[in-house]
């Protein structure tokens, strides 16, 4: 089992998201995250799909996606240099002054930003890799058990232009 990344260019039409996500559920493929947005060409949407699978299943997933009429192009990002980021919001409730100081410290280390704050509730924004966000969530869960709410956006990825490793 290995973490995989797919970049998928699809027709920007009603029902395409259902077709793609439906393929995963119908065939029992595991799907970690799927993000989609329109490209510079408004008739084309671009999806970033992350999933965990073995080699054989992944080959089948790529073939099944490619044969969909609505799929224009599939690029396998698994072993290519890419930049990827995920937006993460964390709301921390019931904060004391000590908690808030701690949160500012954590933000600095993780490259997160405190974007809102009302005395007892703090809102953090962190745009990092999925793994880095996982680490931040783990830390906050430990420190602020049962007091955090998480909103994750799913990863978006783009090919690197200058780096040769990720």
């Amino acid at each position, binding site marked *: 089992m290995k973490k995989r990344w797919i970049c998928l260019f699809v*027709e920007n039409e*009603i*029902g395409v998201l*259902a077709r793609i996500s439906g393929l995963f559920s119908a065939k029992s493929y595991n799907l970690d995250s799927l993000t989609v947005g329109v490209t510079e060409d408004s008739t084309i949407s671009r999806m970033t799909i992350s999933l965990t699978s073995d080699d*054989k299943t992944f*080959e089948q997933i790529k*073939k099944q996606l490619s044969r969909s009429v609505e799929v*224009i192009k599939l690029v396998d990002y698994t072993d290519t240099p890419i930049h990827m980021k995920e937006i993460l919001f964390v709301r921390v409730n019931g904060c004391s002054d000590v908690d808030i100081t701690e949160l500012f410290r954590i933000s600095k280390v993780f490259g997160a930003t405190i974007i809102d704050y009302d005395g007892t509730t703090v809102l953090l924004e962190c745009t990092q890799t999925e793994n880095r966000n996982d680490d931040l969530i783990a830390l906050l869960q430990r420190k602020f058990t049962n007091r955090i709410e998480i909103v994750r956006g799913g990863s978006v990825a783009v090919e690197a232009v200058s780096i040769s490793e990720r």
Partner: protein
Amino acid sequence: MEITGAELFVKALKEESVTTLFAYPGGQAIDLFNALYGEKEIDVILPRHEQGLVHAADGYARSTGKVGVCLVTSGPGATNLVTGIATANYDSVPLVCFTGQVPTSLIGNDAFQEVDIVGITRSISKYAVTVRKREDLAETIRKAFYIAKTGKPGVVAVDLPKDIQRAYGSDFYPKEIAIRGYKPNTSVHMGQLNKALDILRHAKKPVFLIGGGVNIAHANKEMTRLAELTGIPVITTIMGKGAIPTTHSLYVGNIGIHGSYAANRAISNCDVLFSIGTRFNDRITGKIEEFATAAKIIHIDIDAASISRNIVVDVPIVADAKKAICSLLEKAEPLSVSEWVNEINDWKKEYPIDMGRSGLTPQMVIKAVNEIFTDAVVTTDVGQNQLWTTQFLALDENRQMLPSGGLGTMGYGFPAAIGAKLGNPHKDVIVISGDGGMQMNIQEMATAVVYELPIIICILNNGYLGNVRQWQEMFYDRRYSSTCMRYRRSCEIDCNTPDHCCPEYTPDFIRLAESYGAKGIRVTKPADIKDALISAKQNTKTPTIIEFIIDREINVMPIVPPGNSLNDMILESEEHGK
């Protein structure tokens, strides 16, 4: 010139050379039917149920090679197509299914007879789309036909909201279409083909395993030449049967859980398995870990997703079967494999598929069909009737078999025959069905009668849902749960001992045929089989039902029990012997 969407729909059908349309009207399709009214170039066929309708379109498409076209209304009209869409798509049959839909302004409102048919069919079709703008209509229909018949053929559903049908717009219908995400493979990778030929050159025990892809590509003549040129024996799947004539000396038989001993044995012992147009479905491989373990495997398929999915192959080749076979014909050489062929022939003699029993058997019926109907389309239903047909029906360039192979849809055979007869009026069209499957679309008797289609319907009546009963007998301690078709409330609930005291069968198929204005013949003795078939052949005005009363507990043999490898076949039935 400005015309309505409905008028453009009719124009599109003509541009696509549609001459037969399988159609059932309803509120949201009434404008389309209005535009079709009095139309002379399109034969509009009104079946009695939308499921029968879509199977008829399927039988028409399989037997003519043309796209089958359906038109139904929204809601229940559309949902009644679902089984037929899945049936056709699973067997790669090109269909375009038009469904009426509530006006775009009402979509999502739970309007009367509104269903999301595009959503419902998404996972069982090649493509499904709702036309949301009148200006998209022509291109969408052109696209639908193109997608349905190219590449690996399949079903396209086109949902037509009522306001689109009524809206005026351009009468232009495009000839050419380009879809950026859809580029069916049209070439053969010569490097891969050479690799395959190289493996073949060193083969001592090669076999061809041929699936439905060769029949779909109409590459039967080429396949026969390739077998003759190389001298390699040919094994087929159920869908591939007929790829070369079944009487050919190089034809071994069907592979699979009801395949022949020789074919399964040859697969298990071959050193090169050269497969074309099959997806290695579980019904043909048996226990996958023990499938063709000694062989190098070459796999040609038009669908990349069918390759290396169920079994790992050594040389994958993504190509159309006909193109690939033609390329092979240019380069392949004769092999000296006569010893291997002899070995297979010995297996054939050792355990031929033969019921070898007295009384009226399905084998006798199908053999008589072979003798009497030389230019024919034979459809089958699903279950024992289908398996016996795939075992005993002889196929060649003039005789074609249409089964529901992938989905295994009971109720397919009879309506499919209606489509096949409409597409092939000069051929004899025969249905081999069971008493269970025949009742699943029996309402189409009216369709066959009113369109004067002299279809010959052979019902092999054992009063059981025989295939399930056979499994219950062999693997479930004869617990005949819900499989007896002669059961009545007055019977013992756990009866598993059919005898002469069983209640009368219902319906009486003979009187049923007569009530529709068709002919009915009941056959109980082997001596009457041929007379009945000949008399049915002479009845050229109406369909004929021939009910063959067969032994209640005949089994389909041989069988590979569930979970076993192809090597572990049960060859003879315990109860009855050979």
